[in-house]
C-alpha cells in the first residue's frame, strides 16, 4: 500500500498512458484516436513534471538581488525544484499541439472526402 501511495504520481501517469494507448489502438473513430493520443502525451508531461518536483521546495529563483554575488556552495539545491524537466516539457507541449493540429487537419480532409470519421467505413470505401 505504501508503495502505491508514496509514488502515486507515477501510478497516475502509467494508468493515464495506458488509457490513452488503448484509445489510440482500439477505438475505430478517428477523433477518439486523437483524444487518446492527447491523453498519452499529457501522461508523459505529468511524468516529466513530477520528476522535477521536490517536497517542500520552491520555484528555482534565487532570493538575493540580481547582481549580488552568491557563492555557489551556499545555494541549497534541495530547496529548489529542478526546472529542467519543466522546460523540456514546454517544447514537448508545442510538439504535441502541432501533432494534434496536423491530425485534426487530416481528419477534416478525410471527412470532406469520405463523409465519415469511422475507420471501418473509410476502409470499406477505399477497397
Amino acid at each position, binding site marked *: 500500500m505504501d508503495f502505491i501511495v508514496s509514488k502515486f504520481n507515477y501510478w497516475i501517469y502509467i494508468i493515464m498512458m495506458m488509457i490513452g494507448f488503448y484509445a489510440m489502438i482500439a477505438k475505430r473513430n478517428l477523433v477518439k484516436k486523437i483524444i487518446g493520443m492527447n491523453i498519452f502525451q499529457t501522461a508523459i508531461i505529468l511524468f516529466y513534471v513530477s520528476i522535477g518536483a521536490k517536497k517542500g521546495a520552491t520555484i528555482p529563483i534565487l532570493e538575493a538581488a540580481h547582481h549580488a554575488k552568491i557563492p555557489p556552495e551556499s545555494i541549497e539545491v534541495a530547496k529548489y525544484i529542478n526546472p529542467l524537466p519543466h522546460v*523540456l516539457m514546454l517544447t514537448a507541449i508545442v510538439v504535441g499541439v502541432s501533432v494534434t493540429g496536423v491530425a485534426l487537419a*487530416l481528419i477534416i480532409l478525410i471527412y470532406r472526402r469520405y463523409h465519415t470519421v469511422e475507420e471501418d467505413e473509410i476502409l470499406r470505401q477505399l477497397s
Partner: protein
Amino acid sequence: MMQQAPALTIAILLLTAFWVPIFGMVKRESAYYISLTAMFFSFLAACATLYAVVTTGPIHYRMGGWPPPWGIEFVIDYLNAGVLVLISLISLLTTVSAKKSVEREIHRSKWPLFWSLYLLLVMSLMGMTETGDMFNMYVYLEVSSLTAYGLIAMGEKGALMASFNYVILGSVGASFYLLGVGYLYIATGSLNMADLSKILPSIYRSKVIFTAFAFFIVGIGLKMGLFPLHMWLPDAYTHAPSAISTLIAPTMTKVSAYVFFRIILTVFNPHFSWEVIPAATLLRWIAAVGIIYGSIMAIAQKDIKRMLAYSSISQIGYIVLGIALANRMGLIGGALHIFSHAFAKGSLFMVVMAVIYKTGIRNIDDFKGLNRKMPFTMAAFCLAAFSMVGVPPTAGFFSKWYLVLGTVAGKYWWLTAVILASSLLNAVYFFRIIEKIYFSSFVDLVTGGSGGHEHHELPAVAVAEAPLMMLVPILLMAAGILAVGLFNTQIIHHLLQFIVPKGLA
C-alpha cells in the same frame, strides 16, 4: 566559415524554409529554385564538415558556446559525417529530379508550402544525424515526422488514411523515445550523449536503465519501420507523391537506423547492449524474420511502389542484423548497408518517379518492353536491382558480403542461410520485372496495340526518355551505387572502421 559548417548545414535550410512561402506568394515558380539553391549550399557545408572530420578528427560544435553537459552540442564523428553527406547528396539529387513530377502531381497553389516542408524535412534529418543531445534528437525526430505527415497527405487517393495511421504510430514511437529520455534523465541527470555514456556504466544493473533501453528500441524501431513495427510504412510509401516517396525511402529510415547505431553503441556501450541484457539475440530473431517477411511480401505485390516499400522493410532487417551480430564484420556490414541501400532504393524510386511521370505506369505487369522506350532509365533500374540482389561489383554485394562474413565469424549458420535465401527472393522479384522490361515486347497503352504475341515482329517504338532533369540524377545515383561498391574499402577505412568498439574481434 569552415568552423561553422556543421551549423550551416541546418541553418541554411531552416532559414530558407521560412522564406520560401513568402517569395512563393510573389512568384510560385521561385519556390523551387530557392529551395534548390539552399539544398546545394547545405550540401557544400556537409561536404566541408566531412572533409574536416576526415582530416582533423571528430568535431564538437557547441551551440551558443555553452559547454556540453548543459548546452546542446553537435558531435560529428566518422560515422555521422558519412551519413550526413549521404543524406544531403541524395536529397539534393531528389530535389533536382522531382521538379517535373511535383509540378504534375501537386496543385500549383501548394508549391511554395510543399517546398518549404520539403526543406524542413531534410533539415530535421540532418539535425538528427548531427546532434549530440538526446532531447534535441527528440525535437528533430518530431520535426521530421510532422513534415512527413504533411507531405505524405499531399499524395493520391488513400494518402490521407496512410498519413493518419502514420500520425498515430509515429506519435507512439516518438512518445516512447521521449519516455526513454526521461528515464535516463532520472537515473543520470544528463541529456548529453557523451556525458550519458560516461555516467551509465556504473548503474547498468538498474531496472530504470533496462526500461529506458526497451523504450528506445521500440520507439526508434517504429520510426525506422523495423518488423513487426512496420505497419505504417507500405501505405505511406505507396500513396505519397512520387517525389516524397523518393525522398523518404532512402533517407528517413536510414537516419533512424543511424540513430539505432548511435544509441546502442554510444549512449549505451556494447557491453550493456549485448551482454547485460540479451538484446542482440532478440534483435537477431526480429531482423531474420523481418528480412524474410519483407522479401516474401514484396513478391506478392503488383504495385511497384508497394513492392519497393516491402523490400525496404527487408533491407532495414539487414541493417539491424548487422548491429545484432555484435562483431566487427557485422557492424561494418550493417553500416555499409545504410549507404548501399540508400543509393539503391533512391535510384529505384527515382526510376519509378520517371516512369510514372512519362507513362503513368505503376502496375508491374505494364513494364513490358519498357527498355525500348526508356533505355537509360531502365539500365539504371537494372543496376539498382542488381545492387539489391547483391551482384558484384555493386554496393549491395559488398555490404551483404560483410554481413555474411559476420555471421560466419559469429558461427550463426542459420543467419547465413537467411541472408542467402533472402538474396534469392530478391532475385525472384527483381528479375521478374527485368524479364518484363527486356524480354517481352512493348505494349502501347495509348493505342492499345499489342506487340506481345510474337517476338520476331516487334513494333517500332520511339525512344521517349525521361526529361534530362530526371535522367541525370538517376544516372548519378546509379554511378553512386557503383562508387560505393568499388570504393567500399576506402569508405570503411576512412569512416566506418571507427564505429567498431575497442577490443571487439
